[in-house]
């Protein structure tokens, strides 16, 4: 039960992170590969303010959101000169800078040791604390609801239409009197603010953050979520998040496969594997699953799984990622 609540909270945090990424990638076709780095900054801002200065929940949250919002200026500056793939490379470089800073600026970030002991929020005026995970779950989903309400507006009003139009044909959008640069920068600002919010929540929830939680693998996970759910689709992204967070969970039960087989066949496992043909087929699969159930293999397996899914989706539904034939 405790584990189930943990999963739901993680889904909530990723919903905020993925949906904000969906705004820039899905609507604007802007491959902002620094999104997770901005999320990292949000987490670090909260962690530092809460542990070093003892700042309260709302203070940390607002600071994380606003400081991350400032990163939109850098992203916007990158997007003026670099378009499409080059923008992806530019933001990738930018995210490497942030990762390097998180690891090497030891006096501030404690390097690879990370920042432990981030206290959970407490609302003294309501006499509520969030050390209990069920309370934290409620808090997370209140913030998810606020985020989704605001993003729903931006996914459905003039802003979304302009963002989609500029991704297809920038000059024609300008010819309709739209300030495309302002629209792009606004999309970075909104996405970065919500990434900061997700980062802040993550830091509060996990209590301990270190640079390895915000690596490129994490970016690939968020990218996979958005691509699986079809970029630009509001509810598809929700589906993608839930699906991909829960997907590797059955892997945890792989060590129980022989037990399940014994129950199914009503005989001990060595006997099953000795059955001609059927046993020869089952044995390699079961051995592989047993191997995969080791904790040292499970982590990398998850990463491989996401990468393979991303590859399959892009390979068979190329138009999901780049729906439009590019034009000059």
């Amino acid at each position, binding site marked *: 039960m405790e584990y189930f609540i943990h999963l739901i909270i993680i889904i909530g945090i990723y919903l905020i992170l993925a949906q904000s990424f969906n705004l820039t990638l899905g609507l604007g076709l802007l491959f902002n590969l620094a999104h997770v780095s901005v999320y990292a900054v949000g987490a670090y801002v909260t962690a530092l303010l809460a542990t070093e200065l003892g700042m309260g929940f709302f203070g940390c949250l607002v600071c994380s959101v606003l400081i991350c919002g400032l990163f939109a200026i850098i992203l916007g500056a990158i997007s003026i000169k670099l378009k499409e793939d080059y923008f992806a490379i530019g933001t990738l470089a930018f995210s490497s800078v942030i990762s390097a800073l998180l690891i090497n600026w030891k006096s501030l970030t404690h390097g690879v040791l990370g920042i432990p002991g981030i206290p959970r929020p407490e609302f003294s005026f309501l006499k509520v604390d969030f050390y209990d995970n069920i309370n934290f779950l409620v808090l997370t989903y209140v913030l998810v609801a606020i985020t989704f309400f605001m993003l*729903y*507006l931006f996914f*459905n*009003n*003039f802003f979304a*239409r*302009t963002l*989609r*139009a500029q991704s*297809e*044909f920038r*000059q*024609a*959008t*300008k*010819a*309709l*009197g*739209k*300030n*495309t640069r302002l629209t792009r920068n606004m999309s970075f600002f909104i996405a970065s603010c919500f990434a900061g919010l997700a980062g802040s929540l993550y830091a509060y929830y996990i209590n301990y953050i270190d640079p390895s939680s915000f690596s490129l693998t994490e970016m690939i996970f968020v990218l996979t979520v958005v691509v699986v759910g079809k970029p630009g689709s509001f509810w598809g992204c929700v589906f993608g998040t839930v699906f991909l967070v829960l997907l590797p969970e059955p892997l945890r039960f792989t060590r129980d496969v022989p037990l399940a087989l014994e129950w199914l066949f009503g005989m001990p496992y060595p006997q099953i594997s000795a059955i001609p043909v059927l046993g020869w087929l089952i044995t390699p699969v079961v051995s592989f699953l047993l191997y995969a159930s080791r904790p040292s293999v499970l982590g990398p397996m998850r990463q491989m799984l996401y990468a393979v899914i991303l590859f399959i989706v892009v390979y068979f539904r190329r138009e999901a990622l780049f*729906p*439009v034939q590019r*034009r000059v």
Partner: protein
Amino acid sequence: MTTETILSVESLSFAVGDLQILNDVHLHVLEGETVGIIGPNGSGKTTLFNCLSGFNSPQKGSIALKGRDISPYEPHKRAIAGLGRVFQNFGIFREMTVGENIILALESRQPIRSTFFPWSKQNRKNVATAREYLKQVGLEDKFGDKAGSLSGGQMRLLEIIRTLAFGAELFLLDEPTAGVAPKLKNNVASLIVKLQELGKTVLIIEHDLNFIQKFCTRIIVLDQGRVVLDDAPEKVRESRLLQEIYFGNASE
């Protein structure tokens, strides 16, 4: 009809590196006029339009729209000032629906507040207005279809009517019949006539002299970045210079 100058271009020059594309172009267009621009490939017709709409920044010269100097303006501000552009390679948004294409144009002049909430009254009004505009070009039953599924001619009609919905006063049409089936050419022509009736000023780049002769009051011939001829359609047609530009010197 008023006869004020809507567009005046003074000594416009544009070069890429050493290549002079526009060379001291002067152009004056009166309100309500329809002016055709012809010239061989590479004579700078599209570049002239790009300079007018602000996608290329000329090294020299000034552009005034309705007496206001718009040369320092960015493209979107020029558009708001009344400049409408129809692109040669179809400026519609193919991944959006036909209706959204029109709604996008309508929203440009509306305050952000009125269309911020998807369920606002203004949004519903825009849908109704968009349907009316589409009815004018016979695309009302395509409202929910992707614009990319339209034929070339329908795309062109959509783009012109979208520019009208946007509220442009000066239309820059870059080869409106390129990629349009012969049957739909007449529809494009009658739409241009409709623009004239609404008192809009139209500049058309076109190769087909027969096509523009019908509604142009004036034809300008560009060659190697210069205006070489500026006269009534019949005179331009008979001009020896035009034949020399297009077919080379016949006497040789």
